[in-house]
């Protein structure tokens, strides 16, 4: 792939740590997902109570995106996300609420999150961004898929920047890696570089 674009910044959320460009901005020894999200919210987001109504995938995505977008003025930002479990973590919760025919009370608030791309909708609402978005479900993180899609969006002027990456939650296992593709930036937008940045915290 020709290196026409750059990676402006990147974030990771895993193992109780939220980092930006490889530097931790939040750490906790808590291990359960709910506690980690609550503590991270209180330190990094604040004053957005809707956060607690979201499903786990949206919480994770919003947290990883928020540290990259909180001072961003550009609103024409596309999103290209990916993960392995899609919305399965939430789907199971919804299934539990309807599996007993004698206690059949489907929750509207859970049902609305039974699609992986709702996560991108929540980020769009929080940061008032509007552009193309796409969510790929794949076995493992694939820089090639994301980079070609992001470059195409930039080439065709569909967006000024593209927020890309991996946001995956399944049964208390969580992992997020997001990065902003732009015309200027610190890192070259290449598959090898994306892979290197993705592994920054995974090899610690």
């Amino acid at each position, binding site marked *: 792939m020709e290196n026409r674009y750059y990676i402006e910044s990147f974030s990771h959320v895993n193992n109780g740590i939220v980092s930006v460009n490889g530097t931790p901005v939040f750490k906790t020894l808590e291990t359960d997902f709910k506690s980690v999200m609550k503590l991270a919210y209180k330190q990094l987001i604040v004053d957005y109570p809707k956060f607690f109504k979201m499903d786990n995938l949206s919480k994770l995505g919003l947290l990883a995106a928020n540290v990259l977008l909180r001072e961003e003025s550009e609103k024409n930002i596309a999103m290209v996300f990916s993960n392995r479990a899609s919305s399965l973590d939430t789907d199971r919760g919804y299934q539990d609420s309807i599996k007993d025919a004698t206690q059949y009370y489907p929750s509207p*608030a859970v049902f609305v999150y039974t699609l992986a791309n709702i996560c991108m909708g929540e980020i769009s609402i929080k940061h008032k961004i509007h552009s193309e978005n796409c969510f790929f479900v794949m076995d493992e993180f694939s820089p090639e898929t994301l980079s070609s899609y992001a470059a195409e969006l930039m080439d065709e002027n569909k967006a000024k920047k593209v927020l890309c990456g991996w946001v995956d939650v399944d049964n208390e296992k969580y992992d997020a890696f997001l990065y902003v593709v732009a015309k200027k930036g610190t890192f070259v937008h290449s598959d090898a570089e994306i892979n290197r940045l993705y592994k920054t915290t995974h090899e610690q």
Partner: protein
Amino acid sequence: MSSDLKQELKKKIIEQLNLEDVTAAEIADNDPLFGDGLGLDSIDALELIVMLDKDYGIKLADPKEGRKIFESIDTMAAYISANKA
């Protein structure tokens, strides 16, 4: 109308609608639940309709009825007291 029921409703709303950092003591009986009050939204309204059915055996045939019923804890408690199965 029972103040126990009002207290129970406040606790259920906080728990079922995931109202983080809100306590029952902070919700006045006549506070608006939507808009400038507790800030509930349309999905919350649907959750409250499910709650009426699940916990009090009250089925709302027309969701639009919820607009009046869910104005405040006072109006919810009055409706439940009058219609509880």
